[in-house]
């Protein structure tokens, strides 16, 4: 009798006598059995295969992102370091260039200074030599004044008196005049 009502070939409109299908206790056992089988299978598949796999995928992606970010940070650090090294090189080169320029300038200045000093010294030496020569010439000239004066006195006396005067007397007289 139950078979007639729940065999699935039941005629619509006739099930008023039978139970409402979801409440029909005859249907409970097979549904529970198959639910246990299918849900058990689903739980096994999900907990053993699917969920660890998805967790693994998400974990890998997270690791990849973190790793990439770290690598990017490291590369930026490298770039910064390279930039700093470049700046340092440029600054060093600039400093060296300035030092070289300064050195050259100093050297040139020192050389020209030395040259100038040497020239001055030479000129001074020449000046001194000339002054000495002048002094010598003057001394000599002054020493010649006596003999010129003697000769002139001798000639004058001879012209006037016609006598050749005593040279020694004239010399004494000239010397006396000169020292005057």
């Amino acid at each position, binding site marked *: 009798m139950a078979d007639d009502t729940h065999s*699935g070939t039941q005629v619509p409109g006739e099930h008023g006598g039978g139970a409402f299908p979801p409440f029909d206790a005859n249907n409970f056992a097979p549904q529970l059995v198959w639910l246990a089988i299918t849900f058990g299978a689903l739980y096994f598949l999900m907990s053993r295969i699917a969920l660890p796999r998805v967790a693994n995928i998400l974990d890998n992606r997270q690791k990849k992102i973190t790793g990439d970010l770290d690598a990017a940070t490291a590369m930026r650090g490298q770039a910064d370091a390279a930039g700093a090294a470049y700046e340092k090189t440029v600054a060093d080169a600039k400093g060296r260039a300035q030092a070289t320029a300064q050195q050259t300038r100093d050297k040139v200045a020192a050389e020209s200074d030395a040259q100038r000093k040497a020239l001055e010294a030479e000129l001074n030496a020449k000046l001194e030599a000339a002054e000495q020569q002048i002094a010598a010439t003057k001394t000599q000239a002054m020493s010649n004044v006596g003999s010129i004066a003697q000769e002139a006195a001798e000639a004058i006396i001879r012209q006037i008196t016609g006598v050749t005067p005593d040279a020694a007397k004239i010399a004494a007289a000239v010397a006396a005049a000169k020292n005057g």
Partner: protein
Amino acid sequence: MAAENAIDPIHQFNIVPFFSDHVGTATFTNASLFMVIVVAAVSFLMIVGTSSQSLVPGRLQSAAEMAYEFVASTVRGSAGHEGMRFFPFVFSLFMFVLFSNLIGLVPYTFTVTSQIIVTFAFAALVIGVVIVYGLMRHGSHFLHLFVPSGVSPILMPFIVLIEVISFISRPISLSVRLFANMLAGHITLKVFGGFVTLMLGAGALTAVASILPLAAIVLLTAFELLVAVLQAYVFAILTCVYLNDAIHPGH
């Protein structure tokens, strides 16, 4: 008989055996078939969809990851970090209910969750897990679930009674909520479908007016789609809330 079937809104809930002429203890029926289909569909999404394990996911893998992260955040949000030990359980439950509801919306299919015994079995499984885990984890301390702290001794017996009743009613409300939503939605759809057939056969004027129930079916189908997803979510989140009681009974 086909026309009569279309009008009969209960016919869709019949259990039909496949390989025998009566329903025995483990008979393979249309309900069993759709349980297998649901498991196959979920497994296809979660196992075949993620088989490439690619760093940049395709469509299926993206959907599988979204399902994973959605359920994981739900579990973590309502049952805490410790609740994650039940994550595979809640995930299987959510996906089974969701796919049952969604596949059931396709015409000519059978809705596994429109059978009270199925939803009640799930609810009983959830409450059974709560009780077994709670007692295993906390022993008699789990019974503090029924004895809230800070209640005066005079009121205590009533409070305990209320707590016990609310605990016992949980599997009932959990199962009836899902079952009734599915049942009512499918009956409504079928009734409106029956209107369309009746009006088409009743005359020219009513045939033109049959567009109205047809439009109602379209709207109802969209609504039922919402209900299908929402009820699966409600089932999962309530499971998490009950599991949270098992993990932290001294609320």
